[in-house]
Protein backbone atom coordinates (compact mmCIF):
# COMPACT_ATOMS: atom_id res chain seq x y z
CA UNK A 1 0.00 0.00 0.00
CA UNK A 2 1.35 3.37 -1.06
CA UNK A 3 1.17 6.03 1.68
CA UNK A 4 1.96 9.71 1.11
CA UNK A 5 2.08 12.53 3.62
CA UNK A 6 -0.06 15.31 2.14
CA UNK A 7 2.02 18.52 2.32
CA UNK A 8 -1.15 20.63 2.71
CA UNK A 9 -3.00 18.92 5.56
CA UNK A 10 -0.28 16.72 7.05
CA UNK A 11 -2.40 13.57 6.80
CA UNK A 12 -0.74 10.23 6.00
CA UNK A 13 -3.05 9.22 3.19
CA UNK A 14 -3.05 5.80 1.59
CA UNK A 15 -3.57 5.51 -2.15
CA UNK A 16 -7.31 4.84 -1.81
CA UNK A 17 -7.70 8.42 -0.55
CA UNK A 18 -5.70 9.81 -3.46
CA UNK A 19 -6.01 10.30 -7.17
CA UNK A 20 -2.97 9.81 -9.42
CA UNK A 21 -2.25 12.72 -11.76
CA UNK A 22 0.65 11.38 -13.84
CA UNK A 23 4.06 12.83 -14.59
CA UNK A 24 4.99 16.03 -12.77
CA UNK A 25 6.54 19.27 -14.04
CA UNK A 26 5.28 19.17 -17.63
CA UNK A 27 5.70 22.34 -19.64
CA UNK A 28 2.54 23.35 -21.44
CA UNK A 29 2.61 23.85 -25.20
CA UNK A 30 -0.64 25.50 -26.24
CA UNK A 31 -1.92 27.59 -29.15
CA UNK A 32 0.89 28.84 -31.37
CA UNK A 33 3.26 25.97 -30.62
CA UNK A 34 4.36 23.58 -33.37
CA UNK A 35 2.64 20.23 -33.84
CA UNK A 36 5.50 18.21 -32.45
CA UNK A 37 5.69 20.11 -29.14
CA UNK A 38 1.91 20.04 -28.78
CA UNK A 39 1.82 16.28 -29.37
CA UNK A 40 4.64 15.83 -26.85
CA UNK A 41 2.78 17.90 -24.27
CA UNK A 42 -0.44 15.96 -24.79
CA UNK A 43 0.79 12.40 -25.14
CA UNK A 44 4.48 11.80 -24.46
CA UNK A 45 5.14 10.70 -20.89
CA UNK A 46 8.12 9.25 -19.08
CA UNK A 47 7.50 5.86 -17.57
CA UNK A 48 10.70 5.10 -15.69
CA UNK A 49 11.49 1.94 -13.79
CA UNK A 50 12.89 3.67 -10.73
CA UNK A 51 12.27 6.97 -8.97
CA UNK A 52 9.57 9.05 -10.64
CA UNK A 53 8.18 12.52 -9.91
CA UNK A 54 4.41 12.54 -10.06
CA UNK A 55 1.35 14.66 -9.35
CA UNK A 56 -1.19 13.33 -6.88
CA UNK A 57 -4.39 14.80 -5.53
CA UNK A 58 -5.66 14.32 -1.99
CA UNK A 59 -9.11 13.86 -3.46
CA UNK A 60 -10.89 12.31 -0.46
CA UNK A 61 -9.13 14.68 1.93
CA UNK A 62 -8.25 18.35 1.65
CA UNK A 63 -8.66 18.23 -2.15
CA UNK A 64 -5.25 19.74 -2.95
CA UNK A 65 -2.83 18.65 -5.67
CA UNK A 66 0.73 17.93 -4.56
CA UNK A 67 3.95 16.38 -5.88
CA UNK A 68 5.51 13.09 -4.85
CA UNK A 69 8.74 11.22 -5.53
CA UNK A 70 8.43 7.45 -5.38
CA UNK A 71 10.06 4.40 -6.90
CA UNK A 72 7.78 2.76 -9.45
CA UNK A 73 9.41 -0.61 -8.82
CA UNK A 74 9.66 -0.84 -5.01
CA UNK A 75 6.98 1.79 -4.16
CA UNK A 76 9.50 3.41 -1.81
CA UNK A 77 8.40 6.99 -1.12
CA UNK A 78 11.18 9.58 -1.07
CA UNK A 79 8.99 12.52 -0.19
CA UNK A 80 6.13 14.83 -1.11
CA UNK A 81 6.25 18.55 -1.83
CA UNK A 82 4.15 21.55 -2.75
CA UNK A 83 2.40 21.91 -6.09
CA UNK A 84 3.43 25.58 -6.28
CA UNK A 85 6.85 24.85 -7.76
CA UNK A 86 8.37 24.15 -11.17
CA UNK A 87 11.01 21.70 -9.97
CA UNK A 88 11.68 19.26 -7.12
CA UNK A 89 13.27 20.75 -3.97
CA UNK A 90 17.09 20.38 -3.82
CA UNK A 91 16.98 18.49 -0.53
CA UNK A 92 14.68 15.88 -2.05
CA UNK A 93 16.86 15.43 -5.14
CA UNK A 94 19.87 14.92 -2.85
CA UNK A 95 17.96 12.40 -0.79
CA UNK A 96 17.06 10.41 -3.91
CA UNK A 97 20.63 10.57 -5.27
CA UNK A 98 22.08 9.40 -1.96
CA UNK A 99 20.12 6.16 -2.33
CA UNK A 100 20.09 5.90 -6.13
CA UNK A 101 23.34 7.52 -7.35
CA UNK A 102 22.53 6.92 -11.04
CA UNK A 103 19.25 8.83 -10.82
CA UNK A 104 18.77 12.29 -12.26
CA UNK A 105 15.65 14.27 -12.91
CA UNK A 106 14.27 13.98 -16.49
CA UNK A 107 16.95 11.37 -17.26
CA UNK A 108 15.64 9.19 -14.43
CA UNK A 109 17.29 5.76 -14.34
CA UNK A 110 18.76 4.40 -11.10
CA UNK A 111 16.29 1.61 -10.49
CA UNK A 112 16.61 -0.32 -7.25
CA UNK A 113 18.99 -3.20 -7.60
Amino acid at each position, binding site marked *: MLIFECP*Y*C*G*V*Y*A*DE*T*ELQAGGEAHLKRFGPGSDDESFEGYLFMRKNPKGVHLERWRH*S*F*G*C*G*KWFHAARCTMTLEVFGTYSAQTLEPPKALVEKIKAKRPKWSWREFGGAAT
Partner: protein
Amino acid sequence: MSEMAQVMRVNARGMITLRGDLMSTLMKKSIKTVTGLGMPTSGQFLGNGTSGVAWMSPDELLLVVPYADVAKFVSQIDSTMKDQHYLAADVSDARAVFSVSGTNARDVLARVCPVDLHPGSFCIGQFRRTRMAQVAAAFWMHDTGFDVVCFQSVGDYVQDLLTQAAENAVGAAFYT
Protein backbone atom coordinates in the same frame (compact mmCIF):
# COMPACT_ATOMS: atom_id res chain seq x y z
CA MET B 1 -27.97 -1.78 17.17
CA SER B 2 -25.56 -2.90 19.83
CA GLU B 3 -25.04 -1.31 23.22
CA MET B 4 -21.34 -1.03 22.48
CA ALA B 5 -21.76 1.45 19.64
CA GLN B 6 -24.63 3.74 18.76
CA VAL B 7 -25.10 5.19 15.30
CA MET B 8 -27.69 7.94 15.04
CA ARG B 9 -28.68 10.17 12.18
CA VAL B 10 -28.66 13.78 13.32
CA ASN B 11 -31.26 15.96 11.68
CA ALA B 12 -31.19 19.70 11.19
CA ARG B 13 -27.55 20.44 11.96
CA GLY B 14 -26.55 23.86 10.69
CA MET B 15 -23.34 23.96 8.64
CA ILE B 16 -21.56 26.80 6.84
CA THR B 17 -18.65 26.36 4.44
CA LEU B 18 -16.27 29.29 4.80
CA ARG B 19 -13.44 29.67 2.30
CA GLY B 20 -10.78 32.35 2.05
CA ASP B 21 -7.45 33.37 3.53
CA LEU B 22 -7.40 31.69 6.94
CA MET B 23 -4.57 33.98 8.06
CA SER B 24 -6.59 37.15 7.60
CA THR B 25 -7.85 39.14 10.57
CA LEU B 26 -11.34 39.46 9.10
CA MET B 27 -11.62 35.70 8.72
CA LYS B 28 -10.67 35.23 12.38
CA LYS B 29 -13.19 37.90 13.29
CA SER B 30 -15.92 36.09 11.32
CA ILE B 31 -15.33 32.83 13.18
CA LYS B 32 -15.27 34.62 16.50
CA THR B 33 -18.57 36.34 15.74
CA VAL B 34 -20.36 33.16 14.67
CA THR B 35 -18.93 30.50 16.99
CA GLY B 36 -17.12 32.48 19.69
CA LEU B 37 -14.08 30.32 18.94
CA GLY B 38 -10.60 30.91 17.55
CA MET B 39 -9.01 29.66 14.34
CA PRO B 40 -8.44 25.88 14.34
CA THR B 41 -5.04 24.57 13.26
CA SER B 42 -4.52 21.94 10.57
CA GLY B 43 -6.67 18.86 11.29
CA GLN B 44 -8.33 20.43 14.32
CA PHE B 45 -11.94 20.71 15.47
CA LEU B 46 -12.79 23.29 18.14
CA GLY B 47 -16.15 22.97 19.81
CA ASN B 48 -18.47 20.39 21.31
CA GLY B 49 -21.15 17.90 20.27
CA THR B 50 -23.45 20.50 18.76
CA SER B 51 -21.36 23.41 17.51
CA GLY B 52 -17.84 24.34 16.55
CA VAL B 53 -15.39 25.01 13.76
CA ALA B 54 -13.38 22.48 11.76
CA TRP B 55 -10.26 22.89 9.58
CA MET B 56 -11.14 21.44 6.16
CA SER B 57 -8.12 22.52 4.08
CA PRO B 58 -5.60 25.41 3.99
CA ASP B 59 -8.35 27.69 2.66
CA GLU B 60 -11.56 26.15 3.98
CA LEU B 61 -13.40 25.83 7.28
CA LEU B 62 -16.63 24.15 8.30
CA LEU B 63 -18.70 26.03 10.86
CA VAL B 64 -21.15 23.91 12.83
CA VAL B 65 -23.98 26.03 14.21
CA PRO B 66 -27.65 25.75 15.29
CA TYR B 67 -29.80 25.07 12.21
CA ALA B 68 -32.11 28.03 12.86
CA ASP B 69 -29.21 30.51 12.98
CA VAL B 70 -27.53 29.69 9.67
CA ALA B 71 -29.03 32.50 7.58
CA LYS B 72 -28.30 35.06 10.30
CA PHE B 73 -24.67 33.89 10.62
CA VAL B 74 -24.08 33.85 6.84
CA SER B 75 -25.22 37.46 6.59
CA GLN B 76 -23.00 38.40 9.56
CA ILE B 77 -20.02 36.82 7.74
CA ASP B 78 -21.02 38.60 4.52
CA SER B 79 -20.94 41.97 6.25
CA THR B 80 -17.64 41.25 8.03
CA MET B 81 -15.94 39.92 4.86
CA LYS B 82 -17.33 42.63 2.59
CA ASP B 83 -15.01 43.33 -0.41
CA GLN B 84 -12.73 40.39 0.51
CA HIS B 85 -12.14 37.31 -1.64
CA TYR B 86 -14.14 34.69 0.28
CA LEU B 87 -17.09 32.30 0.17
CA ALA B 88 -19.71 31.64 2.84
CA ALA B 89 -22.32 29.05 1.87
CA ASP B 90 -25.13 27.34 3.76
CA VAL B 91 -24.44 23.62 3.29
CA SER B 92 -26.74 22.35 6.06
CA ASP B 93 -29.11 20.56 3.69
CA ALA B 94 -26.31 19.35 1.42
CA ARG B 95 -24.88 17.12 4.13
CA ALA B 96 -26.05 14.16 6.18
CA VAL B 97 -24.79 14.03 9.77
CA PHE B 98 -24.36 11.04 12.07
CA SER B 99 -23.24 10.63 15.61
CA VAL B 100 -21.22 7.54 16.46
CA SER B 101 -20.72 6.90 20.16
CA GLY B 102 -20.13 4.12 22.66
CA THR B 103 -17.09 2.06 23.64
CA ASN B 104 -16.76 0.56 20.14
CA ALA B 105 -17.05 3.87 18.30
CA ARG B 106 -13.39 3.82 17.20
CA ASP B 107 -13.80 0.35 15.77
CA VAL B 108 -16.89 1.35 13.79
CA LEU B 109 -14.95 4.06 11.95
CA ALA B 110 -11.77 2.00 11.64
CA ARG B 111 -13.74 -0.64 9.77
CA VAL B 112 -14.74 1.74 7.00
CA CYS B 113 -12.00 4.40 6.84
CA PRO B 114 -8.24 4.16 6.10
CA VAL B 115 -7.45 6.16 9.25
CA ASP B 116 -5.37 5.29 12.31
CA LEU B 117 -7.98 5.48 15.09
CA HIS B 118 -5.73 4.37 17.92
CA PRO B 119 -6.34 6.63 20.98
CA GLY B 120 -2.70 7.69 20.74
CA SER B 121 -3.20 8.87 17.15
CA PHE B 122 -6.72 10.25 17.08
CA CYS B 123 -8.25 12.02 20.05
CA ILE B 124 -10.80 14.64 21.08
CA GLY B 125 -10.52 17.80 19.00
CA GLN B 126 -9.19 16.07 15.90
CA PHE B 127 -10.85 16.30 12.51
CA ARG B 128 -10.30 14.15 9.44
CA ARG B 129 -11.64 14.19 5.88
CA THR B 130 -11.32 10.77 4.34
CA ARG B 131 -12.84 7.95 2.36
CA MET B 132 -15.63 6.01 4.06
CA ALA B 133 -15.95 2.73 2.11
CA GLN B 134 -16.96 4.02 -1.33
CA VAL B 135 -17.73 7.67 -0.57
CA ALA B 136 -16.12 10.83 0.76
CA ALA B 137 -16.81 11.69 4.40
CA ALA B 138 -15.36 13.59 7.32
CA PHE B 139 -15.49 13.05 11.05
CA TRP B 140 -14.32 14.68 14.24
CA MET B 141 -14.12 13.62 17.84
CA HIS B 142 -15.71 15.59 20.68
CA ASP B 143 -16.18 14.78 24.35
CA THR B 144 -19.12 12.43 23.81
CA GLY B 145 -18.10 10.61 20.63
CA PHE B 146 -17.70 11.15 16.92
CA ASP B 147 -19.69 13.22 14.47
CA VAL B 148 -19.64 12.09 10.84
CA VAL B 149 -20.67 14.16 7.81
CA CYS B 150 -21.12 13.07 4.21
CA PHE B 151 -23.07 14.28 1.20
CA GLN B 152 -26.85 14.02 1.65
CA SER B 153 -27.03 12.04 -1.64
CA VAL B 154 -25.09 9.16 -0.06
CA GLY B 155 -26.63 9.57 3.41
CA ASP B 156 -28.64 6.34 3.29
CA TYR B 157 -25.58 4.41 2.13
CA VAL B 158 -23.48 5.78 5.00
CA GLN B 159 -26.26 5.09 7.50
CA ASP B 160 -26.41 1.42 6.45
CA LEU B 161 -22.62 1.21 6.37
CA LEU B 162 -22.13 2.60 9.89
CA THR B 163 -25.00 0.55 11.31
CA GLN B 164 -23.56 -2.66 9.85
CA ALA B 165 -20.06 -1.74 11.05
CA ALA B 166 -21.44 -1.16 14.56
CA GLU B 167 -23.04 -4.61 14.59
CA ASN B 168 -19.88 -6.26 13.27
CA ALA B 169 -17.67 -4.50 15.82
CA VAL B 170 -19.39 -6.34 18.67
CA GLY B 171 -17.11 -9.03 20.08
CA ALA B 172 -14.35 -8.19 17.65
CA ALA B 173 -13.36 -4.78 18.90
CA PHE B 174 -9.75 -3.80 18.47
CA TYR B 175 -9.56 -0.50 20.31
CA THR B 176 -11.51 -1.30 23.47
